[in-house]
C-alpha cells in the first residue's frame, strides 16, 4: 500500500533495516550506560573507603585555639604583664554592604580614625569575607556604651571579647619587659606556623621578645565542621558531628619571673623623670638586673591594644625617642667612668705606680704639638697621685700615663671589663659599644692616613672620649666587676621560668664570666678606695652626694662631650643649646665591702656627672639597701 504511494521506497526492507539499527542503538546505549554503572561501582564500592575518608577530611577543619600567654612578675612576685579581657571592635566584610560608608561613619563618631580607613580596607579585602577584621583592639567603657546605642546603624560591625596583654605599670617597665604587638608578615615567616596558629600578637622587644618561646605556649586545636569556604557550620544542622576526633587543649605559656625590683624601677624612673637618659642596676654577686630604665619611656599597652596611625607617629617621631631603649642600645662616650679600669690596667702593666705624682696645670700637651688637652678643671688639680686622679677625676694625670699604658693595653683591659662587646643580656636589642684599638682603626677606615693610630687618640680615649662608646648596661656590668674585684657575671633579667600547669620553676643560674685578673690585691684596694673617696672622701667629686650615707659606697663620675647632632633634626635654638650640653654619667656600687648593688646611669645633656647623675645613683642604692625615704 505504501509502495503504491511512494514507489521508490521499499517499506519492508526499510523497516527491517530501521529495526536492526534501533536494536544496535539500544545495545550501544546499554553498553554506554553499563560503562557509567561500572564506573559507579568502582567509585562507590571498590574505592568507597578512600572517598569516604576524603569526604571526612573535607568537612572537618582543625581550628587552632591560641594558648594563654604567660605572665611576667618582678622579683617580689608583682605582676608586670598580664592578660585582661577587653572588648574589641570587629567588622565582618561579607555582612557590610558599603564598607567605605560604614568606615566613614565609624570615623565620624570617633571610633576609628579617618587615616586608618585605607589600612582597614586592605585588611578586609585580604582575608576570607566571613573572617572578622579588628577595627579597634580595646574599647573603653564609654566607647562600648556609645557604640551599643548606635549598633543598629552598623550592620556587620560588633564588639567581641578577647584577652589583651596588659601592663599594669605601663611606662614604668616598658623598656625592661618590652611589649607585644600584632603579628607582622616578618614574624609569620620567622615563627612556627603550627604553634602560632590562632595567635594574634607576639613579643616585640625585651623580655616579651627574648622569652617569646616560653611565654607563648603551644596552640591547641579543636575540630570543626566547615563548609568549602572554611566557614564554621553550626553543629546542630545535622548529625555530621558524629565520630569527630577529640580536641587538643592549648599549652599555656610559662610564667616568667624577673630579677627586676619594681620599687627600685619606680625610684629610678622618678629620678630620671623629665630627662633623657638611662639607668641600669645590677646585683654584682650574680648579674641579676634590679632596675633597667630608659627615659623617656612609653606606654607598652598602646602596642598590645593597637594604636592609631597618628598615635604611632607621635611616638616614633618624638625627638626624645621614647621607643629607643637607651639602657641597652644607647652607646655613649663613657667619659671618666672608665678611669678606675684604666688605673688598674696601668698599675698591672707598670705604666704608673701608686706613688707617682703629676702636677696638674689644667691642660696637657704632647711633645712637638701645640694642641692643649684640657682638664675639666681649667685651673688644674695641682699635684695628684693615682688615688687623687680618680677621686678628683684629674684628666691630666691620665693624659700623662696614657702614652705609657698604650692603646692596646687600654683596649685589652676595657674589653676584660666587658666593654666593646655585647653583654649577652637576656633581653636582646643591645649595642656593641666600641673600645677602639689599632686593629679596629685599621679595619674600619679606608684611607691610609686614617688607618694609623695617633698618640693623641690614645690621650682622648684615656678619659673615655674619642671613639670610645659604651652602653649603660655595659657600664653597669663593668661597675659590678669593679665591685666584686674582678668577678663577673653575665647580666640577666629573668630569674626563673615557671610552668603554668605544673607550677614547676626552672631557676636561671647566674652565668660566671671570665674574671678580670689583677695580680696584686692591693691595686684593687687602692682603686676601689679611690672610688669610695669619690663619694665619701674629703675631696671627692661627688662627696656632696655621698655625704651622710649610713653605708660605704664607691662611685665614679663621668662627663662626656656630645659628639654631634644629626643635621636633619630640627631644634629651636634653646633646645639646640640644651642638646649640646655634655652628658652626665655615673657608675657606683655599695656597700663597699660586700657589694649588693652596682649602678650605671647617664643623663643626656645633664652636664655634670657628679652633681646630676650621682644623686640618682645614690637614691637608687639607698632604696635598694633599705635607706630610702620610703623604705619599709
Amino acid at each position, binding site marked *: 500500500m505504501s509502495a503504491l504511494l511512494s514507489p521508490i521506497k521499499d517499506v519492508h526492507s526499510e523497516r527491517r533495516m530501521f529495526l536492526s539499527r534501533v536494536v544496535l542503538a539500544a545495545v550501544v546505549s546499554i553498553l554506554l550506560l553499563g560503562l557509567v554503572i561500572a564506573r559507579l561501582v568502582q567509585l562507590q*564500592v571498590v574505592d568507597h573507603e578512600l572517598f569516604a575518608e576524603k569526604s571526612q577530611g573535607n568537612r572537618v577543619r582543625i581550628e587552632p585555639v591560641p594558648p594563654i600567654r604567660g605572665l611576667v612578675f618582678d622579683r617580689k612576685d608583682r605582676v608586670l604583664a598580664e592578660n585582661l579581657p577587653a572588648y574589641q571592635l570587629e567588622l565582618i566584610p561579607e555582612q557590610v554592604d558599603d564598607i567605605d560608608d560604614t568606615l566613614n561613619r565609624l570615623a565620624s563618631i570617633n571610633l576609628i580614625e579617618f587615616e586608618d580607613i585605607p589600612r582597614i580596607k586592605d585588611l578586609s579585602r585580604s582575608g576570607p569575607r566571613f573572617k572578622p577584621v579588628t577595627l579597634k583592639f580595646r574599647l573603653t567603657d564609654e566607647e562600648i556604651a556609645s557604640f551599643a546605642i548606635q549598633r543598629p546603624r552598623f550592620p556587620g560591625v560588633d564588639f567581641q571579647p578577647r584577652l589583651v596583654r596588659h601592663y599594669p605599670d605601663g611606662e614604668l617597665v616598658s623598656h625592661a619587659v618590652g611589649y607585644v604587638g600584632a603579628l607582622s608578615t616578618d614574624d609569620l615567616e620567622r615563627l612556627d606556623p603550627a604553634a602560632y596558629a590562632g595567635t594574634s600578637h607576639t613579643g616585640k622587644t625585651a623580655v616579651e621578645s627574648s622569652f617569646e618561646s616560653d611565654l607563648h605556649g603551644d596552640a591547641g586545636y579543636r575540630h570543626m565542621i566547615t563548609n568549602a569556604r572554611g566557614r564554621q557550620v553550626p553543629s546542630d544542622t545535622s548529625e555530621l558531628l558524629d565520630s569527630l576526633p577529640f580536641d587538643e587543649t592549648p599549652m599555656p605559656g610559662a610564667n616568667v619571673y624577673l630579677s627586676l625590683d619594681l620599687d627600685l624601677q619606680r625610684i629610678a624612673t622618678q629620678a630620671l623623670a623629665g630627662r633623657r637618659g638611662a639607668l641600669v642596676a645590677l646585683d654584682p654577686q650574680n648579674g641579676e638586673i634590679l632596675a633597667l630604665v630608659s627615659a623617656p619611656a612609653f606606654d607598652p599597652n598602646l602596642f598590645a591594644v593597637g594604636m592609631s596611625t597618628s598615635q604611632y607617629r607621635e611616638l616614633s617621631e618624638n625627638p626624645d625617642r621614647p621607643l629607643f631603649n637607651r639602657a641597652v642600645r644607647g652607646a655613649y662616650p663613657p667619659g671618666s667612668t672608665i678611669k678606675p679600669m684604666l688605673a688598674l690596667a696601668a698599675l698591672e702593666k707598670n705604666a704608673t705606680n701608686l706613688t707617682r705624682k703629676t702636677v696638674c696645670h689644667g691642660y696637657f700637651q704632647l711633645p712637638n704639638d701645640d694642641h692643649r688637652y684640657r682638664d675639666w678643671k681649667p685651673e688644674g688639680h695641682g699635684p695628684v697621685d693615682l688615688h687623687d686622679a680618680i677621686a678628683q677625676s684629674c684628666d691630666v694625670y691620665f693624659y700623662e700615663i696614657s702614652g705609657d699604658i698604650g692603646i692596646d693595653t687600654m683596649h685589652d683591659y676595657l674589653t676584660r671589663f666587658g666593654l666593646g662587646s655585647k653583654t649577652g643580656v637576656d633581653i636582646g636589642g643591645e649595642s656593641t659599644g666600641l673600645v677602639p684599638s689599632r686593629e679596629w682603626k685599621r679595619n674600619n677606615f679606608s684611607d691610609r692616613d686614617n688607618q694609623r693610630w695617633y698618640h693623641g687618640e690614645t690621650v682622648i680615649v684615656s678619659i673615655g672620649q674619642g671613639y670610645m662608646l659604651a652602653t649603660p648596661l655595659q657600664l653597669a656590668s663593668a661597675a659590678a666587676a669593679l665591685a666584686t674585684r674582678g668577678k663577673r657575671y653575665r647580666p640577666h633579667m629573668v630569674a626563673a621560668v615557671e610552668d603554668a600547669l605544673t607550677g614547676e620553676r626552672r631557676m636561671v643560674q647566674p652565668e660566671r664570666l671570665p674574671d678580670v685578673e689583677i695580680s696584686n690585691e692591693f691595686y684593687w684596694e687602692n682603686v676601689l678606695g679611690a672610688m669610695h673617696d669619690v663619694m665619701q672622701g674629703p675631696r671627692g667629686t661627688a662627696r656632696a652626694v655621698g655625704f651622710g650615707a649610713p653605708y660605704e659606697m664607691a662611685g665614679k663620675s663621668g662627663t662626656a662631650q656630645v659628639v654631634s647632632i644629626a643635621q636633619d633634626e630640627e631644634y629651636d635654638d634653646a633646645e639646640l643649646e640644651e642638646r649640646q650640653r655634655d652628658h652626665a654619667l655615673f657608675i657606683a656600687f655599695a656597700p663597699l665591702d660586700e657589694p649588693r648593688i652596682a649602678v650605671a646611669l647617664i643623663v643626656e645633656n645633664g652636664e655634670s656627672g657628679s652633681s646630676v647623675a650621682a644623686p640618682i645613683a645614690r637614691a637608687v642604692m639607698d632604696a635598694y639597701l633599705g635607706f630610702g625615704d620610703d623604705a619599709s
Partner: protein
Amino acid sequence: MRLSETQRMFTPRAAPLSDFGSILRRLHIDGPLLGGLLLVCGFGLFILYSAVGENNRLLMNQVIRLGIAFIAMLIVAQLPPDFLRRWTPVGYAIGLVLLVLVLAYGEVSQGARRWLDFGVRFQPSEAMKLGVPMMAAWFLHDRQIPPRIGEIALVAVMIVVPTVLIAKQPDLGTSLLIAASGVIVIILAGISFRFMLGLGIAAIPGALVLWNFMQDYQKQRVLTLLNPDSDPLGAGYNIIQSKIAIGSGGLFGKGWTNGSQAQLEFLPERDTDFIFAVLGEEFGLLGVLTLLVLYMFIIGRGLYIAVQARDTFSRLLAGSISLTFMVYVFVNTAMVTGLVPVVGVPLPLVSFGGTSMVTLMAGFGILMSIHSHRKLLPH
C-alpha cells in the same frame, strides 16, 4: 479509505477500556512514557530539594518549570506528525535566522552570547535541539533508504551549519548534542557501517582541527579530565569533589539531605550540572541505579515508539529524540563520574533550570504525537 472504516471497528477507542486509558488516548498521551517521565521528575524534585539546601522557594520554582514543560509536551502531543513534518523546513529556516541574529544582537551572559530578547527571552539553540533532527528526518523521509552519499552530504550541511553557529556563541555542550541528534538520524537512516567507519577515521584529523579551534577553557577541561589532580583547586576541583561525593556515598548513601559534600558546599554546581553527584552521595549506588533504570525505561519506550511508527519521518525523529535523550544522560553521568570532560550538560529532568526542560518535554510530546496519531496517518 474504506479500510479505515473497518479498522475503526477494531480501534481501542471503541473497546471498553478504562476511563483513565481513554482520557489519555484522547489527549494523545502515552501512558507508559508519561509514567516514566513523572517518576524521573518526582525523584528529581526529591534530590533537588536536598541539593538546593531545602529551599522551598527554589523547589517551587522548579515545580512551576516542570508544569510549564509538561504543558508544552501536552500541546506538542496534539500536533499530528504530518503537521510537524510540513512545517519542519520553515521552522528550521527560522531557527537558522535566529541563530545568526543571536550572534549579531544576542545578549551576553557569563561570557557567552546565547539569548535573544523579543519581549520574551529565549535561546534559539534550544529550539534547534528539535529543529535539526526534524530537518534531517524531513529531508530523508521521502528518499531511498539508505541514503546516497550526496544526500548524506546535504544532511551533514544541515547539521553542521547550526552546530557551528551554536559553537560560536560559544556553547560547546549544546552544539555537540545537536550534532549528535542529527548524526543519529543519519545512522538510523541506515548508512553502511563501512561508511561510518570511514567517517570515524576521518574524524581523527577533524578532532585535531577542532582542538585548535577550542577555547582555552575547553582545552583545559579535556586536560583536566586526563589528570584532575594536576590542578586540584582550579579546573580539577569539580571532578575531584564530585568523585569524592559519589564515592563516599557507597552502596546506600549517607541519607537524604545528609551528604556532607553537597550540604557543606564542597560540591560545585550541585543543583545543576553536578546534581548526579548529590544523588550518588545521599542515595548511594542504589539510588543512582534506580534513576538510571528509570531513564532506560524512558529511552526504551521511546525506541519502541520509533519502531512502531508508521512513516520514515516519524521513525527517524522518534529514534533520534530517544537516543539524544540517552546521550544527555550518558554525557552528564559520565562527566560527573569523571569519564568524559566537563561539558555543560545538565542531568535531564533533574537538574535545576527551565530552559532545556521545555525543549526536552516538547520532544517527548513529539514521541507521544507519533505514537498516538499512528492510526490516523494516511499510510
